[in-house]
């Protein structure tokens, strides 16, 4: 759960009172705060952080593949508050089969391309994304190159 040294951070305290079920874990390491969020709650958590806690910027969205561990994928969001001069990392774990999570484009429009990139390279499906297409690779590409089980070299047969 949430370790004691992190509990008193204003962000964590406010978020766990507004969304008591959402925060699954937290870590403060190398002066960076990471919160693990229940995947089903990502949109309401982001909306709360943006509207109530002034995290007006979404810096980036990406994924880490922990293959062969399960749940395999870790979708990572980096938030930034100009006013508080703080950065925050959110993480959601997703299972390897059919990884799906709600899109946060309704909170920040700028999430659009980052989620498309994550979809393109990891095959994470973002529900309710207005335009979920490949962005880096050709439309007819097969496979998701940044997954750990995708080889770095070799010819397609």
């Amino acid at each position, binding site marked *: 759960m949430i370790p004691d040294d992190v509990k008193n951070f204003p962000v964590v305290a406010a978020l766990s009172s507004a969304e008591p079920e959402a925060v699954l874990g937290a870590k403060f*390491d*190398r002066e*960076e705060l*990471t919160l693990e969020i229940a995947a089903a709650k990502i949109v309401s958590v982001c909306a709360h952080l943006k509207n109530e806690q002034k995290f*007006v*910027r*979404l*810096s*980036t969205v*990406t994924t*880490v*593949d922990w293959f062969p561990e399960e749940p395999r994928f870790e979708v*990572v969001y*980096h938030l930034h508050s*100009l006013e508080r*001069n703080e*950065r925050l*990392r959110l993480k959601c774990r997703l299972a390897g089969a059919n990884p799906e999570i709600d899109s946060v484009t309704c909170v*920040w*429009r*700028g999430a*659009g*391309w*980052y989620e498309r*990139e994550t979809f393109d*390279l990891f095959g994470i499906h973002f529900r309710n994304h207005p335009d979920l297409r*490949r*962005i*880096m*690779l*050709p439309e007819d590409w097969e496979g998701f*190159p*940044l997954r750990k089980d*995708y080889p*770095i070299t070799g010819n397609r047969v």
Partner: protein
Amino acid sequence: MSAGDIPGVTVVETEPAEQAPEVDARPRRMTLNMGPQHPSTHGVLRLVLDLDGETIVASQPDIGYLHTGIEKEFEVKNYQQGVTLTDRIDYLAPLSNNLCYCLAVEKLLGLEIPPMAQWTRVMLTELTRLNSHLVWLGTHAIDIGAMSVFLYCFREREDILRIFEMYSGQRMMTSYFRIGGLALEPPRGWQKRIKTFIDVFPSRVDEYEELLTNNRIWIGRTQGVGKISLADMLDLGVTGPMLRAAGLKWDTRKAQPYSSYEKFDFEVPTRTENDVYARYLVRIEEMRQSARIVKQALEGMPEGRWTADAPHVVLPDREKMKTQMEALIYHFKIVTEGFGVPAGEVYQVIESPRGEVGYYVVSDGTAKPYRVHVRGPSFGNLQAVPCMIQGTLIADVIASIGSMDFVLGDTDR
């Protein structure tokens, strides 16, 4: 200027005019493909424009032509080898990317970098900013029709590239910053070279301004063009000079200083007009401020080593390697297997010439990064193109996207 007159632009498809029963002859709607080989898109950006006459109704940027899988490549290189990949991401600001990646890995390692290396990093990163802004100014002016500015800008850029060459042996892909400090000892006589350059540079900026700032054609093409609200920009992930030209005084160098930027005295220029002209003025002023930083670094450069005291990370001096057993062992280990980095994750952000560069590095304790994600400023900035050019004229598209100063290598990675 009609669409067909622009070089490199081809009309790909025309929709039949919507059944227009009235006499009101509405101009035909047209879809126009601009790029990816268009000279003014600075690389391989493709814009699909939906036109009503010469007005843009909607647009769709298409990227990925320069995707090289750099993030995958990081996972099979050891940490130190990764530095060479960072050069190739944003090829107009290689040292900014070197710096961000090195800072991220150094944060994971908990390395203390000696002041001399930190100051040299600041000095060269600011020269990189000058280099990048000069290329931007020259090419942006050419796009709009001012040919001569390009020649002036590239004259100074050449001086900067020579300085890089003197430091690292390379003009562009320098890889001069390494995890643990600098790749080499600064060359003999560097002070003189930097001083010669930085003493004349401010007067060179005056020259560019003389050509452009009060130029009626320049003002006519740039003032009031490319407007987009600050709220939209923040929402869409735009960073850097674009935000500062809209009045937001945000600069990572001031807000979250890294590599001893807090010890330097400089201003963050802002404008409020939020158009192409304001972005030009902001970047011009940034050049002057960068020159100030370089000058301070030159005058106050601390003495000392250029690498951290970390024998397991930094290669030993040649002399020590040949005379001391311990140094030889470290040398062998670093060269053959690299160095392990404690497990953990770090998101390091710096202010590059284009905006916020972020490196998210995940380590699993081995000698190769488990995952490296690069947040390139151009990717975030380009996302705002449709919002910015909607409703404007096709002739202003080039001025608008030019004012964003994107690099496609940084977008596509």
